[in-house]
């Protein structure tokens, strides 16, 4: 089952990043919906694994498909969806996953049946030009660094919160994690689409277990609040640096959302977060017995 979790994780990313890479808004939106369904499959598979007393991790081996035409991307995605089919378990959940994927495969096949859908893909061309906006090199550089920094962070947050949500019995914690996951999905989508516009779309790097096996939830949340503050500052700086009304408004909007994330995280601090034993499988007393340098 852990293997199917890994494959589903890779498929979620493949569908989401294919969506980001495509310019056609209708196809982009439809594929993004499918990526969210794939993410829910991940969540349900993780629940079944934990119920069965098994574990899973966020290791992955995938490469992002970087092609120059929409049809090539869709063909590649089709292969990836087909490859997972025989690995689903023969359970109610396995049946649901197969049914959803069959519908997705039909949609992908229908796209390939109409040559008018085949558009050039510019998401990987590294041109670093943002639509028709007249941004200076300095502004593009700042935007590029921001997008790499924050797309990784949002991916990390989605997975870390999902890992913790799967392991909590506290209703309020579960609800806060749900909101934070949804928010990070939206940010990841926004930043992924912006990276594609700049021609620098890339997968966020893989998460190491040290990032998601949380041994001290309170410390994690406090560090998370500090990170949100740093992200707010980056948004503020970027908003003032980029002399474009539309982009500045967007970063102010993201900045305000980060403020509410902090409020949500502060709610976590009000819950019983001393019960973090279930969230770790590492012996951290031994782990931290290092030497100062």
């Amino acid at each position, binding site marked *: 089952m852990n293997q199917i979790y890994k494959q589903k994780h890779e498929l979620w990313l493949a569908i989401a990043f294919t969506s980001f890479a495509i310019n056609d808004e209708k196809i982009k939106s439809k594929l993004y919906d499918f990526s969210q369904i794939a993410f829910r499959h991940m969540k349900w598979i993780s629940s079944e694994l934990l119920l069965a007393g098994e574990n899973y991790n966020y290791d992955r081996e995938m490469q992002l498909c970087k092609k120059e035409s929409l049809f090539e991307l869709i063909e590649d995605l089709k292969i990836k969806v087909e490859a997972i089919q025989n690995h689903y378990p023969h359970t109610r959940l396995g049946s649901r996953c197969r049914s959803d994927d069959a519908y997705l495969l039909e949609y992908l096949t229908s796209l390939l049946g109409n040559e008018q859908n085949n558009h050039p893909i510019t998401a990987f061309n590294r041109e670093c030009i943002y639509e028709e906006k007249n941004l200076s090199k300095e502004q593009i550089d700042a935007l590029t660094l921001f997008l790499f920094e924050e797309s990784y962070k949002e991916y990390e947050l989605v997975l870390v919160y999902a890992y913790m949500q799967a392991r909590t019995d506290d209703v309020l914690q579960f609800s806060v994690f749900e909101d934070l996951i949804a928010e990070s999905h939206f940010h990841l989508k926004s930043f992924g689409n912006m990276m594609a516009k700049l021609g620098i779309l890339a997968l966020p*790097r*893989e998460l*190491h277990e040290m990032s998601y096996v949380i041994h001290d939830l309170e410390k994690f949340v406090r560090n998370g609040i*500090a990170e949100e503050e740093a992200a707010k500052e980056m948004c503020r700086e970027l908003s003032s640096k980029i002399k474009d009304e539309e982009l500045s408004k967007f970063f102010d909007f993201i900045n305000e959302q980060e403020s509410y994330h902090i409020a949500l995280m502060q709610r976590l601090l009000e819950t019983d977060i001393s019960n973090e034993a279930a969230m770790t499988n590492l012996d951290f007393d031994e782990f931290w017995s*290092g030497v100062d340098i």
Partner: protein
Amino acid sequence: MLENIQVPEGMNPEILEHLMNPQNYGKLDAPSGVGVAVDEKSGEYVIFYVQTDGKIIDDLRFATNGCQDTVVVGSMFTQMIKGDAIEYAQASIQKLNDKLSGASAQQQICADMVLSAFIAAMQNYENLQNGKTEEMHVLKMKESCENESDI
């Protein structure tokens, strides 16, 4: 090769390449040494895996939850020393430190964390060779990114 190292300041095609495709990122299945450098204040870490026979660094990987400067330095440093002698790697640490002397305080802290993680991995290898039982060697950083206002 050392002459080609560029401090990640501003954006150029080489830096962009490291951002889009960090080299030697991830884990090794059966490493000879594992080291971690951790900033306890911010929770940031770099973990380093090395595969060595004591003379040559045959393979290596790193992973981090840190910023893009850390990723770029890690990618460059691992690319630089992979397949080379340990002595070369040790000399590279000093040369890289010299090169970074003009970089921002934050970049120096990030680079220091990468280099410390590598040193920790080599220490773990040495400890294991000397019969010590140690899953990984951990070094706690004294300087924290969190102190820097230009994050």
